[in-house]
């Protein structure tokens, strides 16, 4: 792949928030390392999915990429231009090309503005469309693209359902003709039947407008569905990155495996046969991440050497990038999960040896019975 095909490149990106204490003097007593050294590239026209548990730094990464939060360190290159050192005026001009969609359409839309005024605002800010008629034409096109009727223009956000509000949020981004859209949990506030409408809409828009997406979501099934490449974050860093299908069929990092095995699948046959890797405890605080491998305090495969004191870097393993010292030996099952602190359970029967594939191939016949 040539560098021209890369629309966005993030290099060693860091966002550290100061933790302040004190009444008179704001003393900085430490830092939350929300994003702590992330490298990733997004090819033009593709979708990069970012998954991980709440608080792992997904939203912060998305905002820092768009320069909505100032990075503490590292670079963001958008279409060949480094953004972190760009003068404000030039950055403003670039902004039109990078838009964002938010999780909760209600709180991201001003309740006192009608749809027309919501959509006009961005056009005016960026000086697009010479007069009212031109802007109306652009807005009309945007409404068509997201599947909203023209009468929506004079209505207010509260008059729409959640799915329609998310369409308004998408129209607000699309009307500016962006190349990159960062979508932060775009469907997680929506009902299942509405989620699918919005997911399909995002897919269609990508196809027709050649959009590049960074989709941030905690729902792995949604992310798998819409992403070409998926990055898994844990405590501010990527622990694995792989083509979407490969990540799900061959997860290599222990955290990815645990995450995959925890996602419920709406199919009793699959659910009854799956091995679940239960992690002990909760996510450690990002203000005070564990030394060595950040996952070692919860990792079922943690080894007495290296894990606690040497931070693993992302390495290429057969087309995936994985940050685990022992990934190959875990994949070959030479290393087995230790049962101390974490457990591997099987759904209905306890007798069989655990399988290494979190979701067994659907061809295996189910013979478990319940009730």
């Amino acid at each position: 792949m040539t560098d021209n095909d890369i629309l966005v490149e993030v290099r060693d990106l860091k966002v550290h928030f100061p933790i302040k204490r004190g009444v008179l003097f704001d003393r900085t007593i430490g830092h939350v390392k929300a994003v702590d050294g992330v490298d990733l590239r997004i090819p033009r026209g593709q979708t990069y999915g970012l998954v991980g548990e709440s608080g792992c730094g997904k939203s912060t990464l998305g905002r820092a990429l768009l320069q909505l939060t100032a990075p503490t360190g590292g670079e963001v290159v958008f279409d060949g231009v480094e953004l972190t050192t760009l003068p404000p005026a030039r950055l403003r001009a670039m902004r039109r090309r990078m838009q964002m969609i938010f999780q909760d359409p209600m709180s991201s839309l001003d309740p006192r503005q009608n749809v027309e005024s919501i959509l006009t605002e961005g056009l005016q800010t960026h000086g697009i469309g010479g007069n009212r008629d031109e802007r109306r034409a652009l807005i009309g096109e945007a409404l068509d693209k997201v599947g909203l009727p023209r009468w929506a223009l004079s209505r207010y956000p509260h008059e729409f359902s959640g799915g329609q509000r998310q369409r308004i949020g998408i129209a607000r981004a699309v009307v500016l003709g962006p190349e990159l859209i960062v979508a932060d949990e775009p469907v997680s506030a929506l009902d299942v039947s509405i989620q699918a409408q919005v997911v399909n809409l995002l897919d269609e828009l990508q196809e027709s407008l050649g959009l590049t997406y960074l989709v941030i979501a905690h729902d792995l099934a949604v992310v798998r569905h819409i992403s070409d490449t998926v990055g898994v974050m844990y405590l501010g860093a990527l622990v694995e990155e792989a083509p979407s299908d490969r990540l799900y069929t061959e997860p290599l990092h222990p955290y990815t495996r645990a995450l995959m095995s925890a996602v419920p699948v709406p199919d009793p046959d699959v659910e009854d046969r799956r091995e679940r890797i239960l992690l002990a405890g909760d996510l450690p605080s990002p203000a005070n991440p564990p030394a060595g491998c950040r996952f070692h305090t919860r990792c079922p495969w943690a080894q007495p050497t290296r894990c606690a004191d040497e931070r693993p870097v992302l390495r290429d393993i057969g087309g995936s990038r994985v940050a685990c010292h022992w990934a190959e030996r875990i994949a070959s099952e030479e290393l087995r999960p230790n049962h101390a602190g974490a457990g591997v359970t099987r759904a209905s029967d306890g007798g069989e040896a655990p399988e290494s594939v979190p979701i067994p191939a659907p061809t295996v016949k189910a013979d478990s019975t319940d009730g």
Partner: protein
Amino acid sequence: MALLDVNDLSVTFARRGQRTVHAVDGVSFSVDAGEVVGLVGESGCGKSVTSMAIMGLLPRRPGTRIGGTAVFDGTDLLGLDDRARRDIRGRDVAMIFQDPLSSLNPVIPIGLQVTEVLARHRGMTGDTARKEAVGLLDRVGIPDPNRRLKEYPHQLSGGMRQRALIAMAVACRPRLLIADEPTTALDVTIQAQILELLKELVQESGTALVMITHDLGVVAGMCDSINVLYAGRVVETARRRPLFRTPRHPYTAGLLGSVPRLDSGRGEPLNPIPGSVRDVLSWPEGCAFAPRCSRRLDACLDETPPLVRTHDGRSYRCVDPVPLPGVVPAQAGQPGTPSPERNEEETRD
């Protein structure tokens, strides 16, 4: 008779100047000891109101009407006075809410909240109660339980609070536990821990569990039988496997077609249900799902579809249900006749 038998439960909220809301409209289901029964449906379909009504937790307001019965071990919970209800709640019947903060007392340490429950319902005091509390917190996977006993709810993470709440629910060994979206606010890895705990409780103590969720994946892994709700009505009831293999109500089928699955590939198109729950008929008769239904017939608009019960114990409210594979589509209004081999599979679960 089942441990809990909910029959024709209905809840309406009337407010002056506003349309009366039929939040729950003739809901019936039953739960046996050691059984997990799911209530599944989208936001606003009446899951929480159903559970609050059974638990007697709906605010008593002039406009609120509750009808039907909820018979628990021979006693109609809906007919109890406050005292009797408080007595049964906590001892025999417990509930876990979606937001654990709202049901924990913010100014009392976790440990004291657990020991209070133990004192009230199992007569334990002093060191015995404290030891039991530590054991319970440990069992629900709270690390370092001795220290945690002294902490206040806000000092615990969301997952930890939910586990503390489960510890309190388990403390009195309830015979019936109603869990309303117990894991919706949590990350999947924590969700997996908590679901595992609930399964253990059912298996080890024979607790009857009513699992309320919008997540079809959770239902597939947990529930023995499932009630699908739409707009306050149960539109389909079935055992787990038949429901997922051969959904009969178009809404159930639509839901299953909408969810992206972790084990299906990139780009396989989803089949959303058109419209939204807000699209309702402007008159109360007729099937509430009709405005969004691809199988809609004229009959669907005229009257509430009757409950069709099939020989294998499933039921649905639909005039033109999704045909079973290998079955000649039924005439409108008549249930299809399943072929013999289908039959066997259906009754197996």
